[in-house]
Each structure stands twice: as structure tokens, then as C-alpha cells.
């Protein structure tokens, strides 16, 4: 049996705003295996960051459950135990603004050590040095520098060191390299992969860069308007994409060589109005932009069906009724919004 570290089960996160409720995350379920890198890709504003924020506890879920190592962690951040806070950490996209400019790198790295009581005071210096060495920054040279004096890539290395200071087992990486050029990105990605091996880390990796995803993730999950469209093992995902949104995404990847062009589906231009998470289209929420839309798509929301080993997709083109029915049964009433629930089921 594989060892599941994280289960996100029918997670919902709604934000009430003056203009209506934003369904930032709307009933998503997935699980993550220890030691893997699951990639989360999707539309801007589809709820990727919000999902990560629910996992780390910045927001309590509106509904649904998050299980970490078999325990529910859906409670508020303030109620989380120190041990749990140490065990799940996050790296943000923008290294510039996530590091306090008024503190030296040594001070920045000593914060998690103090807050989480990782080491006794007299061991702090040794620990900081070993953290810097771990991310391949010479400690004596970097310890007393301030963030503004180092490069963007190096800042991100510091942010990674800070995340790893508490020996976490799950690290959420929210676009960790999208502000960096490809050569610096290469360095960081390779470092992250090496650390994953050495420390048996599990990554939830958010990025818009599908070419990068192709090279780092073991599985890829696609989000659209707060919902998951498709999850598949990486190779399968790129060879046999099924959901129309996935295909649209893949066809829009900017590439630099002919060989890569050959791997992309034929171009499906992005069309239609981008719908709002306040006013989600009926039925399949992608129908307003879908090139393969059928009549039923505007009425019924498709359910996730398994179409291959570990490959699930949520689209009417693949709704094998038998499988669909069994999943629906399993998911029970939770699978739908109470409001959408038809009266007298059948």
C-alpha cells in the first residue's frame, strides 16, 4: 500500500464579498502520496493559492475536510499544534516581499527556529549554517547579508531554507520560480529535487509553467474555476490529455522548438468570456469556453470518472454512466451543493 500523506476531501472555500460569494475552491478532492510531487496547474484565479492556504491553515475551509497523516487538520491555524505547524510549510512566489528587508539572513532564519523551538538557543548558529549550506549558499558569506543585497534566486534559496528549518514533511510551493530566469530556476528546481530525495519531502507544486511541470511533477492536477478538471500521472497527462480545458492549456504552451511543437495538441484558441467565480456557469463550469460543448453540458455538472490508472477526468465526453453512477453513490449528497440538490432523487 502506498503511504498517503495528505487527503483533501470535498474541500470548499467561499469568500463572502459585497458582490456575492466567491467560490474560490468548490468541492475538490485529491490525495497526495508521501515523497511525490503533485503539480497543481490552472487558470489564474482558479483557487490554487486558496487550496494551499487551506492546507497550511491560513483559511479555515468553508466545508469539507483536510486530512494530514490520517488526522483532520481542518481547524483554524491558531488551534493547530506546534508539531503540525512545523510539519507543513510553504514557499511563496515572490521572494522579494516574503523576506523582511530589515533583517539579515541570519535573523530571518532564526525566526522559525525560535518560534518552533527547533533548536536550543546555543545551537541556532550551527543550525542556520547547516540550513544555508543545504541550499548551497556559503554560510559565512551570506549570513550577515540583507535580502536586498542578494539576487532573486538567492532570496528564493533563503526562503526555501526558512521553510525547511522546521524539518517539515510536506512543503507547499506556490510558484517558487516564476519570478526567476530559466538558468536560476534550473538550479533551484534541481536543489528542490535533491532535497526531496534526501529528506523524503512531499511537494504540492503550483505553477503555470507546464514545461516545468512536465519535468518535475509525478502527477498533475488541473483546476478551473475552483474545481478540478483532470488528474493524471505526468507522462500520461501529456500524452493523453482528455479534458477540453487541459487540451486548451496544452495547446497554448509557448515553446521554443519544433520537437516540442509536435507534442502539443492542435491549437484551441481561448474563446468566450472568462466566467466569474461569483457567478459560476451552470452545468460544467467550463462550457462557456469549451470547444466540444454539448447540450447537456450547460445543464448537468459532470462528475469525476476514472478513465485509466490514476487518471481521472470530469467531462461529459467521458461520462461512462456505469462508472459515474458508482462514484455518485460513493460521494453521496456531499457531491452536490445543497441548493443544487434535486428534490426527490429519482
Amino acid at each position, binding site marked *: 500500500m502506498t503511504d498517503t500523506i495528505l487527503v483533501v476531501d470535498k474541500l470548499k472555500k467561499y469568500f463572502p464579498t459585497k458582490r456575492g460569494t466567491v467560490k474560490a475552491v468548490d468541492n475538490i478532492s485529491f490525495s497526495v502520496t508521501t515523497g511525490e510531487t503533485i503539480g497543481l496547474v490552472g487558470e489564474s*484565479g482558479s483557487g490554487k493559492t486558496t487550496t494551499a492556504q487551506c492546507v497550511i491553515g491560513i483559511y479555515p475551509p468553508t466545508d469539507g475536510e483536510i486530512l494530514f497523516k490520517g488526522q483532520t487538520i481542518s481547524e483554524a491555524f491558531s488551534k493547530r499544534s506546534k508539531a503540525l505547524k512545523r510539519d507543513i510549510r510553504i514557499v511563496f512566489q515572490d521572494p522579494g516581499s516574503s523576506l523582511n528587508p530589515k533583517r539579515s539572513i541570519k535573523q530571518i532564519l532564526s525566526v522559525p527556529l525560535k518560534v518552533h523551538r527547533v533548536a536550543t538557543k546555543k545551537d541556532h548558529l550551527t543550525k542556520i549554517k547547516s540550513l544555508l549550506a543545504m541550499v548551497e549558499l556559503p554560510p559565512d558569506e551570506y549570513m550577515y547579508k540583507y535580502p536586498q543585497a542578494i539576487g532573486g534566486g538567492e532570496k528564493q534559496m533563503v526562503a526555501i531554507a526558512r521553510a525547511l528549518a522546521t524539518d517539515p514533511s510536506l512543503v507547499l510551493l506556490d510558484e517558487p520560480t516564476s*519570478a526567476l530566469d*530559466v538558468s536560476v530556476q*534550473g538550479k533551484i528546481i534541481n536543489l528542490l529535487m535533491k532535497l526531496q530525495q534526501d529528506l523524503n519531502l512531499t511537494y504540492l507544486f503550483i505553477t503555470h509553467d507546464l514545461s516545468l511541470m512536465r519535468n518535475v511533477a509525478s502527477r498533475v492536477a488541473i483546476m478551473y474555476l475552483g474545481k478540478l478538471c483532470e488528474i493524471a500521472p505526468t507522462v500520461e497527462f501529456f500524452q493523453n490529455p482528455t479534458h477540453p480545458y487541459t487540451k486548451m492549456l496544452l495547446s497554448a504552451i509557448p515553446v521554443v522548438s519544433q520537437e516540442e511543437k509536435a507534442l502539443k495538441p492542435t491549437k484551441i484558441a481561448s474563446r468566450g468570456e*472568462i466566467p466569474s467565480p461569483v457567478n459560476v456557469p451552470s452545468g460544467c463550469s467550463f462550457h462557456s469556453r469549451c470547444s466540444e460543448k454539448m447540450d447537456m453540458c450547460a445543464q448537468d455538472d459532470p462528475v469525476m470518472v476514472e478513465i485509466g490508472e490514476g487518471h481521472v477526468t470530469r467531462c461529459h465526453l467521458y461520462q461512462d454512466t456505469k462508472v459515474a453512477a458508482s462514484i455518485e453513490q460513493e460521494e453521496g449528497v456531499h457531491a452536490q451543493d445543497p441548493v443544487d440538490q434535486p428534490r426527490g432523487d429519482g
Partner: protein
Amino acid sequence: MSPLLDVRDLSVGFKIFEGYLSVLNGVELTLGEGERVGLVGETGCGKTTTVKSILRVLPMPPARIAGGEIFYRGKDILKMKRREVQTLRRMELTAIFQDPLMSLNPVFTVGTQLRDIVKDSLGASGKKLTKKQITARCIEALKETGMPDPERIMSNYPIQLSGGMRQRVCIAEALSTTAQLLLADEPTTNLDVTIQDQILRKLDELVEEKNTSVLMITHSLGVVMDLTQRLYIMYAGTMVEEGQTEELFASPLHPYSQGLMKSVPKLTGEGVSDGIPGRIPNYLDPPAGCRFHPRCEHTMPICQTEKPPLFNVENGRHVACFLYRS
């Protein structure tokens, strides 16, 4: 014909507590009317500093222009009066900045900020619109960037938007002006590829319709390939190579460009390269000669003492590397 924008031998540094950071080191860059030019380079090489110098928005101090000229339609921006520069920024130049949170004001709603920009560019061109028309314009601009639910966005504060939405607000601002030159500093990094594609097509249109010139700064070499005709590669404050985009991709000449091209993660999935060994130099005490020499595998004695000029190589390509000295 003289180019629209002509940056000559621009040197810019920053005075900080530890000393003087010599960042831009003789930058050369030209941009023709209606031309789309790419600028790529290592994180921290000075791309944003170049853009800010052109717009004259560098904070001074700590920044200091150590030398050089920036001609826009033949006039040196660096010598213009404040008022002149302000008019230029309202009428002719526009920028999309890398960090949208920095260019958006956190205490005003998106609507307030967008309306101001539209009013500004209208005021500058002497046209008058009613409040309603202005709002309609803003919503239209937001729609063009693929923004969902523009009406809601107008009443939101920047903090209530996702990263990509903030970025699209900045793009909408840029699209609402009448500018002739668009300096786009990483305009699409936070966006998914379908929206990115939509915005790139929009920029295409803009160039066609208004003959706008675009300087596109990005880390996505795929975007550069898609959008630009000509490309500059920058390393540690200097342009190290220039050429037609496709040719430059097919055969990068400068050792830095070669390393950069090799680092692009590919859809073919052969793993991520380790990047170029070493790191960008310390601007407090940058290497003499070619600033890339400590990381270069072809370093020759001359590289350590002399700054290589841009050598003219076959069919109009330029490389600042002594390997190409004829």
C-alpha cells in the same frame, strides 16, 4: 530613419550603505517604430532598472545615472524637464510592471485607479467623457485582458485579487492609454497559458492597429519566441548579444546565451538542466573586463582586462564576446 527609442551607453548604479553598486554598464538598446523587441537575462541583471531609467522613475537617491543617453524620437529623456517627462509618460510611454502589488495602490479600489488613468490619458489628448463612459471604458479594458467579472473587480481592493488578476489590472491600465511605446516588464508571469496567449494576441493587435512599439521583458523564452522579432540578451548590466529572435534561438553565440538556452525546461521532458554554474557578480565589485568571464568556460586573458564591445557577426548579429573578434 532614426529609431523611436535609442539607449546609448547607459550606466546606472545605486549608492548603498556598503558602497556603490555599479549595475548598468554601458547598455545599448534600440527600438524601431512598431517593432517588437524582447529582452531576457538573468535575475538581477538590470532589466527593470533599464525600464525604470527610460521612464525616469528610478528612486534617486539611491540610484544615480553615471552616464549615457536615452533618445526618444531624437530627444534625450535624461535631459528633459520634469514636466516634459510627465507629459511623455502620460501620452507616449506606458509600462506594465513586474510587481503589480507595487504599482497598484492598496488603499484605493481597482475602479478608482483605472478611472484615474483613463481620465489622465483623455485629459492629455483633450477629449472629454462622462463618468459613465469612463467606467464603461475601464470595464472594456479589463474584459480585454480576459478578466472575469470586471464589474466586481472594479469595486475590489488589490488585496482581494489573485496574483494573475492584479497583473491583468496593470495590463488593462496600459491598454487604456494612447501610448506609442509599451515597456512590458514580465506582464504575464502570473497568468495561465491560455490567458497569456489571449493577452499576447491582444498585444499583437495593438501593435498592428496603433503601430505601438513593444519592449517585452520576460523569463519565458517561449513568449519571446512567440511575440518578438528581435531579441537582446543581457548579462550583469550589459547587452551581450542581439539578433533576430529565431536565429538567436537556433544558434546562440555568446557563452551566456548558450547556457541560458540550454536551461529552458522542455515539453519533451528530459529533466531540468542545472543552469549556468556560478552566480551573477557582486555589483559592489564587478569583475573587470567581460563581466561573464569568471563563469565562462572559454575565458581568455583579454577577457579579464578588457570589456568586449559588440562585435558585428554575420547577417547583422551582434555579440559582446572576444571569441567573435575578427
